[in-house]
């Protein structure tokens, strides 16, 4: 059961990454650091203002949307390709990590909230509220994103622009505005992921890196730009990890996702 919920978190973290990589050809490694920034901000605001953590989204999400806009503006202006964007966002990750550490120190922080403490009883199982919410949010957002891409005009325009940019432009698609919007959206997703990280996990700056591998694996396995695929892959990976942990020692869990990632990259390099 825990596997399912961890999968939800993977999907939340990967959603922004999958979108920008699939539709904008930018690999935004900083998505993870952003999510953690969001997590820390949630912690700070919820603790300082003594409000329900979920309410902090009201402030954080728009702010992150703007951050996303600014980032994409930079990518467009400097015409960064995929590999360069990977390196640049690695640099950004380092900067963000340092920022986080400077403000909140390297000490572990734990957001105290009713969500972490409550468990619901679903049939014979006890389910942590925080984890359940994370999964529900993931399911909701991925479904919404998928549906938006599939059926809305803007979503179709985004897909068209990714397949043949100039032709989409020839029929009226303002690619620049679209790119900015998608980037802003991705960062907003990172903010949401941050909320649930704060609810369910202890925060430390070094934690940023521990998610990178798994989420990348999920994004690639689920195919770039495919929200539902991401969700499925995330759940699958999280489930395999849980299984591995149950069968062998917990330490072996990461092996699953990375081996899968390597295999997929070798067998289907045309993402």
């Amino acid at each position, binding site marked *: 059961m825990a596997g399912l919920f961890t999968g939800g978190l993977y999907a939340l973290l990967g959603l922004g990454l999958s979108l920008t990589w699939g539709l904008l050809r930018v*690999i935004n490694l900083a998505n993870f650091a952003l999510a953690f920034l969001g997590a820390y901000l949630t912690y700070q605001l919820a603790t300082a203002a003594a409000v329900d953590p979920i309410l902090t989204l009201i402030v954080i999400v728009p702010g992150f949307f703007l951050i996303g806009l600014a980032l994409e503006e930079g990518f467009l202006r*400097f015409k*960064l390709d*995929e*590999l*360069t964007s*990977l*390196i*640049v966002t*690695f*640099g*950004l*990750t*380092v*900067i963000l*990590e*340092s*920022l986080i*550490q*400077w403000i909140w120190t390297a000490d572990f922080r734990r957001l105290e909230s009713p969500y972490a403490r409550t468990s619901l009883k679903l049939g014979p199982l006890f389910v942590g509220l925080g984890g359940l919410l994370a999964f529900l949010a993931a399911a909701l957002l991925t479904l919404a994103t998928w549906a938006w891409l599939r059926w809305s005009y803007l979503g179709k325009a985004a897909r068209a622009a990714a397949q043949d940019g100039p032709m989409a432009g020839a029929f009226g698609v303002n690619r620049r505005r679209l790119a900015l919007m998608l980037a802003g959206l991705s960062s907003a997703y990172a903010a949401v992921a941050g909320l649930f990280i704060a609810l369910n996990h202890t925060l430390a700056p070094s934690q940023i*890196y521990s998610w*990178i*591998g798994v989420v*990348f*694996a999920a994004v*690639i396995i689920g195919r770039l730009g495919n929200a539902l695929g991401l969700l499925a892959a995330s759940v699958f990976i999280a489930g395999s990890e849980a299984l591995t942990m149950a069968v062998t*020692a917990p*330490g*072996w869990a*990461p*092996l699953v996702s*990375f*081996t899968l*990632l*390597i295999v997929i*990259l*070798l067998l289907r*390099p*045309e*993402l």
Partner: protein
Amino acid sequence: MNSGPRLSPTWGLVVAALALAAVPALKLPAFYESFLYLVFFWISLATSWNILSGYAGYFSFGHAAFFGAGVYTTATFTTAFNVPFLLSLPAAGLVAALLGSVIAAVVFRVRGVRGELFGLLTLAVTFVLSTIALNTRLDGGPGVFLAAVPVPTVFGTPATTLYHLALAAAFVSVFAALAIYRSRWGMGLFAIRDDEDVAEVLGVPTFRYKLVAFALSCFIAGLIGGIHAMFVTYVTVAETFAVGLAVDAIMMAALGGTRVWYGPALGAVIITTLTQSLTGGESAVLNRALIGAILIAVIVFLPNGVAGGLQRRFRRAAPASAGARTSVGATAGPTASTIARVTVATPAPAAAAPLLGCVEIKKAFRGLQALAGVTLDVRAGEILGLIGPNGSGKSTLINVVSGYYRVDGGQILLDGQDIARVHAHRIAGLGLARTYQIPRSFHRLSVLDNVALAAMFGGGHGRATGRSLGRAWLAFTGLEAKADALPGELNLLERKFLDLARALASEPRLVLLDEVLSGLTPAQMTDALGLVRRIRERGTTVVFVEHIMRAVLDLADRVVVLSGGRVIAEGAPRLVMRDPDVVRAYLGKAYA
């Protein structure tokens, strides 16, 4: 890569190494030795990373994996098996190299894994290895203590020994980088970075070159890993397999310049010095942020790093090539000396058997039959024009003959030998070369090196011979004044001539020209036609695809017309163009 500087860098390196080796004798405060150790440490890591990733363009994010392999090899050998520390070092290097070779052998076979995918894959390898280390007896969790392992003391304290070992590792890595940079191997790696497919077609053994470069890079990483294990004396998985290590190495190489042998070392010195001067308390954290910011600034604004900026400065200082706007092709023709130096292909007498024979060649793409059974002959020493309306299959035919596409059926006989199933990179060695409609030069190699590369790998020559042959070919095409320029600085006609020189440098018997005249002004076209004739005078057979009819009528001895994937006419140009079938193919029924 220009011709090397006057002073030999090798001696400079040796002198520097000796000088640095003497530093401990100065009995300075321990801080200096530690600082220098760190500098050597990072020089080794950054330079070794650069050997594959910088030179060949395959950015690995997994350097930490091989570093870690070396760390844990030494840790395990010295503690569990009581192997003497010094002996464990080559083992550390070898284990890392072996690991790297196995991975490379698999990954480099897959064509699609380049660029960012290679980066991700190598990143994944780091995580896999760290998991394995964490969960097996290699580490198991608590880390490995090495304090009890004896370190031989030659010049004083163990710290000094480690200092010298690190210095040795740094020296080895920089020396290797320099040696490779000046070798055939290095030139091949640079070509791979610019355009791997073209490099392969020219005969560069891409798989082998990449594999050995990667193995060497891993060896050095493992070596410094083993040394470092003893330096820290307490090894943990988290610290060893840290992704940040790989990023730091990349950043130093990028800052210093990935395309030069001393770039990564330069970057390592700069960053380590900066880091040291910014340590202490609060600023330690911000200093990481600063480094991140530097990385971003460098990648965006200085794609060639500090070294690249320096190189550009020096090139501008050099006198601009005489007559920067010399019209190319104005030279009357090859001088006697160039003919003497370049082996002339013996023009075959009107041979009975054709040089190239295509027999019923078929090729289809997704339902579209591009070639529906093409049969034609090319006679030695002729200039054959290949024409036809758009979509008739001309380019496909060129691509099929040069090995870029596989035929579905039929034979391609080069001097009687069927080359239909031969790989593209072997075809260069068999005497066939081609140019591209849009010139594909190696844009970071000098004009001379572009041609020299083809001579070296197509003709099996060494670097020096390759270079002098390159100059001869540049003279033949009138480009010798631009030998040290970069292809991006040439105009279109010059780039096409460069393409031609490169195609000729492998001494082909047959050269395929794909729309060489497209985009040229009438004056430039005259130059180009003149060059094609000179090529034939040397004895090379020419097949050229062209649309510009005036040129075809002017240049071709014989003409073959394709339409709908088949040959519909062939013969003397003017006669063929009056053939009713040909007229109908171009203009439609009403005109025949």
